[in-house]
């Protein structure tokens, strides 16, 4: 018997970001706040050092279609992340590789 608080918590949930492109490939990335409010603080913009891989995911066309263009990139700070463009909504997201 499990407790009432027991529930599944999703891991590696994508985070909404804004991506600047150059020749169709990501050049810089900026995290968005919940409401994406403009603040006095300059945006946390990080340049992309290199694009390691790119691939496309098309799945679940029979119900809620998922279509993503993914890029595994190395940020200028040395971190490795996956950026993907949701080709259905046009939004950009970031998650761990």
């Amino acid at each position, binding site marked *: 018997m*499990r*407790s009432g*608080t*027991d*529930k*599944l*918590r*999703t*891991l*590696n*949930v*994508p985070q909404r970001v804004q991506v600047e492109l150059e020749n169709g490939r990501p050049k810089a990335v900026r995290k968005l706040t919940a409401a994406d409010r403009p603040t006095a603080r300059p945006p946390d913009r990080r340049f992309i050092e290199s694009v390691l*891989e*790119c*691939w496309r*995911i098309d*799945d679940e066309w029979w119900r809620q279609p*998922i279509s993503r263009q993914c890029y595994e990139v190395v940020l200028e700070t040395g971190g490795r992340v*996956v950026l993907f463009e949701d080709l259905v909504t046009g939004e950009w997201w970031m*998650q*761990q*590789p």
Partner: protein
Amino acid sequence: MTSLSAVCCWIPLFALRCEEERRPGSSAHPWALVAPEDARHVWQVSALARAAGVKAGLTVSQAVGLCPTITLCEPDPVYYDAQFAKLLAALNAVSPVIEPAELGRVYVGMDGLEQLHGSPEEQIEMVQCVVRGAWALTASTENPVRTAGNHAPRTTHRLGWGKGKFVSWVAATRARPGSAVIVPPGEEGRFLASQPLAVLSLDPDTYRRLRQLGLRTLGDLTALPQEAVVSQFGRAGRRMWRLAAGALTESIEGRASPEPIVVALTFFTPVADLRMLVQTLEQLIERALKHPRRSGWRVRLVRARAELEHGASWVLEALLKEPSADRQRIIAPLKTRLEQAPPTKAVERLTVEFAAFAPGTTALQLFARDAGAAARAGRRRALRNATREIALRLRRPMLYRVVPVQPWSRIPERRYALVDYEL
């Protein structure tokens, strides 16, 4: 300590070889070892049993059906670990960078040893001598009759010299028993291209898919664009491709031996009573064993020192034949010597020092059922205590377990999830 250039020493069917050495004449009839974790299945099979069609992984009844004269033996994982530890200790004389990969397979780091041992050929020669010596030593200890009979030293080991673990391992798999294959620097790509896919140690599904794609060798794999392999097999595909192309060089990670552990006790009044000294020694050994630096190591050399009245001193040293982490085994030789040569005056301060160590349970007794179970029980107990403490402090457990939900999913956030950790 790391090293890029490596010698891989591989002794296939290590457990079987150990048993053959321990039971002279066993190779004259078909026999096999049953699996340590599941006595219903066959683990390692002798040449005669293999010739009769018995293979590792078959059930015992299938093995008996195929070869009615087969002898099935219980495995002795602790003994195999001890034999492997002897081999590692011997190889430590060649290089301080030693990385055991599994029972019977070990990497020896060779960076910076050119001045000492010479060219790769000479390095191989050195390792050959050490391995043969270690095996002969094992044989003479375990089976003196056979050694006295001047049998040729065992040549079941294979050696491979190359840059990184993968290249040296593949080289070792290509070597004939008792010999070596050297892959000169810069030749890795050409050497690997002709090797079969099986050297990649893939899971059966990936292997099947690669075969279905018509790929047979590492060269076939690297002929494909890396992106194409990645898109089919993901991260594992990238690693596979880079290993096959010789573009990924994994260095050998040596394990540094811990600094000596010293514990001491100063008596309020000098003690001359032997029983009390023995008791104190036991307590000090117990304390030293609990030292965090000792974790994962067994004690090989122990010293007991005493500061005596009026400035004199006294010392005892014991080199344990079998390294141990057991208090009784460590104290036994000290106790005997203490009785034979007690301090000449009363003792003011007693010190115990663990001066040398051998790799312990976590590194070597991976195959020992009891050691594994004990380690798991210890981890569970520690985790249970930590959970209780966190729950008390934060009023919530705040500790989760990662559970696979759809690990095969192409959507990363659907693969794994967290659930509350409950013990």
